[in-house]
């Protein structure tokens, strides 16, 4: 990436890279240009894996996500409107931002919100930067989800803004059952396969509503990020079997 | 089997009854126990306080005194872990001396560990009985031997014992060798907590297998007027098997 910017003068701040590396080599008694001769330790799955791929992944995902403090809903594609409507109504949300990479899903949700009369905030507009802290709800899809922990995984991109799942007090995430993986290991073995866009800058694993226990160890949700996370699990696998 | 006993300085001088119990129980189980007279100290005070040249000399002495024996048993988990965990680090890897030290480490056991892991003793099958209420303080060095849980399960095998749980039992009593005299306020505060937990257990007897902890805890109990018997597990087993017979032994 060679975007010339006004910060380019900052490129050579600090210690020269070669001097810096030479000091590390010196500490290790290593020579420049050496290679790694011993095998790099591989992850020992027999120790670290906490969820087997043959478990009932949607059930475990729902169970764990709930334990993390997220609320779980199940929906067939045609029930999605009612589910979203219920959640928005329950939390008195007048406006929402949609941040959905899946085209068909995006179209559906847009129609649903139009039918519900929910004001739609456009995160591609120039006012988004300030607006993101005032919008009532963010609706996103996900890259993947993890049965092991109940986490959802969202990457940034041309259709998904980082702010949409971090700034609003309420986050609704749409998870298709085919996106649920067993273990963190399974995801990080092939993270790029699950990306909606190949060249993106941020991926976040979200595991619950925003939390803090800084004041006397008392657990409080919703400190900076969303205090409420609703997950709608869409069964996209049953029909194909 | 012939077992060489490493008695340790504290047990030798302050808790002889505990050492006697170890001998009696091992002999009862059919072992022949020898006591190499040239033994002194494992060198842990030197090692822990940074005097590693002296600690190395004492490790060499220990090796010289105990090398010839098949099995070495000591009543102290602290000294056992000194020999097992730390002796090897004092010698350069790959040298003959290091290999000899490693061989020594492999045949050195803490007394309870030896009974549980090597001899696979089940106290229920020995027919021992011990009446009384007791609570157990697992010494910190059992951590490095990985014996925390096993020691407690072993005690539970004693018929007649009323084992009372101790809150925060895994917490250090505050002894820590030189720590107790370098930072007496912190150390004393730690042992006060320990005494409070022991008192709250309501037990009459404290089972403690580490002479250092016993000195610290019993000394604090004495100062605070908390009446409790402090005994090692070896003593309890020996009593339960009726092995303490003559006056001058008990």
């Amino acid at each position, binding site marked *: 990436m060679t975007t010339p910017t006004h910060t380019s003068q900052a490129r050579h701040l600090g210690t020269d890279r070669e001097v810096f590396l030479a000091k590390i080599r010196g500490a290790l008694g290593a020579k420049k240009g050496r290679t790694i001769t011993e095998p790099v330790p591989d992850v020992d799955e027999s120790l670290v894996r906490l969820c087997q791929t043959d478990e009932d992944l949607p059930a475990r995902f729902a169970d764990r996500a709930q334990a993390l403090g997220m609320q779980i809903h199940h929906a067939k594609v045609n029930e999605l409107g009612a589910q979203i409507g219920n959640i928005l109504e329950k939390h008195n949300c007048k406006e929402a931002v949609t941040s959905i990479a899946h085209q068909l899903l995006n179209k559906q949700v847009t129609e649903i919100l139009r039918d519900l009369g929910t004001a739609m905030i456009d995160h591609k507009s120039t006012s988004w930067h300030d607006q993101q802290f005032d919008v009532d709800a963010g609706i996103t899809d996900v890259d993947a989800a993890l049965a092991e922990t109940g986490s959802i995984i969202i990457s940034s991109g041309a259709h998904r803004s980082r702010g949409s799942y971090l700034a609003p007090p309420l986050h609704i995430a749409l998870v298709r059952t085919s996106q649920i993986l067993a273990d963190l290991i399974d995801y990080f073995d092939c993270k790029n396969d699950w990306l909606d866009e190949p060249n993106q800058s941020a991926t976040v694993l979200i595991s619950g509503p925003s939390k803090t226990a800084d004041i006397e160890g008392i657990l409080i949700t919703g400190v*900076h990020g969303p205090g409420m996370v609703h997950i709608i699990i869409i069964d996209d696998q049953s029909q194909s079997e | 089997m012939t077992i060489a006993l490493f008695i340790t300085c504290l047990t030798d001088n302050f808790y002889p009854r505990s050492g*006697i119990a170890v001998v009696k129980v091992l002999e009862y189980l059919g072992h022949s126990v020898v006591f190499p007279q040239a033994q002194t100290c494992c060198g842990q005070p030197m090692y822990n306080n*940074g*005097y590693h040249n002296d600690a190395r000399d004492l490790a060499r002495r220990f090796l010289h005194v105990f090398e010839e024996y098949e099995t070495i048993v000591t009543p102290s988990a602290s000294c056992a872990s000194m020999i097992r965990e*730390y002796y090897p680090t004092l010698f350069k890897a790959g040298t003959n001396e290091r290999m000899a030290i490693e061989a020594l480490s492999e045949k050195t056991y803490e007394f309870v560990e030896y009974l549980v892991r090597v001899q696979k003793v089940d106290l229920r099958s020995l027919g021992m009985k011990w009446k009384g209420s007791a609570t157990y303080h697992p010494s910190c060095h059992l951590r490095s031997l990985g014996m925390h849980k096993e020691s407690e399960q072993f005690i539970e095998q004693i018929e007649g014992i009323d084992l009372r749980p101790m809150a925060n039992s895994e917490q250090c009593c505050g002894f820590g060798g030189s720590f107790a005299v370098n930072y007496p306020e912190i150390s004393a505060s730690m042992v006060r907590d320990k005494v409070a937990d022991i008192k709250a257990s309501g037990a009459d007897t404290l089972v403690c297998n580490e002479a250092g902890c016993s000195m610290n805890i019993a000394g604090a109990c004495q100062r605070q007027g908390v009446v409790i018997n402090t005994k090692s597990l070896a003593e309890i087993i020996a009593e339960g098997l009726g092995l303490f017979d003559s006056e001058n032994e008990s």
Partner: protein
Amino acid sequence: MTVDTIHDKHDPLHPQLPYRIADSVNRAMGDVQLQQFVNAATTARDRGRVETCRDAFAERYDAVRRHAGDIKQHTLDHLDIYVEQFIDSATTAGAQVHCAASAEEARHIGIEIAKANECKLCVKSKSMVTEEIDLVSALEDSGIKTLETDLGEFIIQLDNDAPSHIVMPMIHKDRRSVARAFERELKTKYTEDPQQLTQIAREYMRHKFAQADLGISGANFLIADTGDVVLCTNEGNGGLTVSTPRLHIVYVGIEKIIPRLDHLPVFLKLLARSATSQPITVYTTILTGPKRELEIDGPKHMHIILLDNGRTDILRTDAREMLRCIRCGACLNACPVYRKVGGGHAYGAVYSGPIGAVITPLMKGLHNYPDLPHVSSLCGACFEACPVHIDIPRQLINLRRDMVTNRTMPLSGRLAYKLWAIVLKRPLLYRLASRIMALILRRMAQSNDSGWINKGPGPLGAWTAERDFPAPPSNSFRDWWNRHTGGQER
């Protein structure tokens, strides 16, 4: 406890050197309420760690800790290669990587970048490295208003106080001190309700995020082969810090590197369980360079400042394993001494507890922190809690060794141990000395009939200040043995 330390010039984390711990110990020993507060918080966290880790890993827990330690150790043993690889891959991903040899240089780089980009307001997420280099005051001195956005750090910033725990920075403060700080500094209505206090902080900071033109974060992990920067947070301030402002600066120590992205799960599974008994932190953010052209938001520029600041000095020694540390704070929670001294401030440096007792002297000089290696009963609770299997007690002992070797230890102590060792190396002398000692101790105990000494001279005096010392019985084990075997020399 929890006195409001407004504009207190004394900074407990950057004290005058050499730092002696005695005053802090005495102060803490007199503050029973603070002790109980820290004790309750750390004990609960420690139990939580054991339960969650046992629950997840069962009997594999120790093996998992070793495994994580092995991966980290491998990385450290080849750190030259992995740092170089990281610089290349992060640069390819579009970040600008800078190397800082010292704290001063690290501060300078950040400030220069901020000035070149005309930054006025900085939002900062929690980072130990920025504490280590004392960044915030340097930014403020350069005219860049800096806001700590982690709730605990924010409160500490309002009070001009210093964090006292790696993960729970305000473990030494209670809700009343938060209430007072908010009322005083934010002019909000006085409330002691943690939910309302949190809400006040949320509202206050949301606008700041929108206004900020600079975000500064630390990093929990760097991935050598992808150039990824991984951040683990719970509040969501980390995510906003690295998303909303147009410029993002990452401050990170070189030891945070791991070789590949597929190694990350091993550490994610251990970090949150060890730190806060969670299966995983609420937000695990993986950053691969700045915002791409087609992306909607994110910083236009991302700078990564790699920090040495004494790390290569640790790398050089047999304390290399200390750099495996993933800053989970489990050793602090497990440590009975940390609890007694009322938390982190007593350690006189940014890194406290068992981990701090080792790395502070290593980074800042043993002669500057001669007490820290000795304020430990070597109970090993820290080693047992460490998710990357660092043998902290052994490292403390090695520092004591170095103090003997370089004669930092006082002569009297060195002579005493020398004399003791001379005795221990000679069995006859040892037996004689044991007898004499026993006689003296029994004589001392004769003043009362209990068989206990309640006032002793010298080091024994320290012992007997608050507890008795036993007098040895008249017959030693050896005496019995010689009778038992009929006096045979064996």
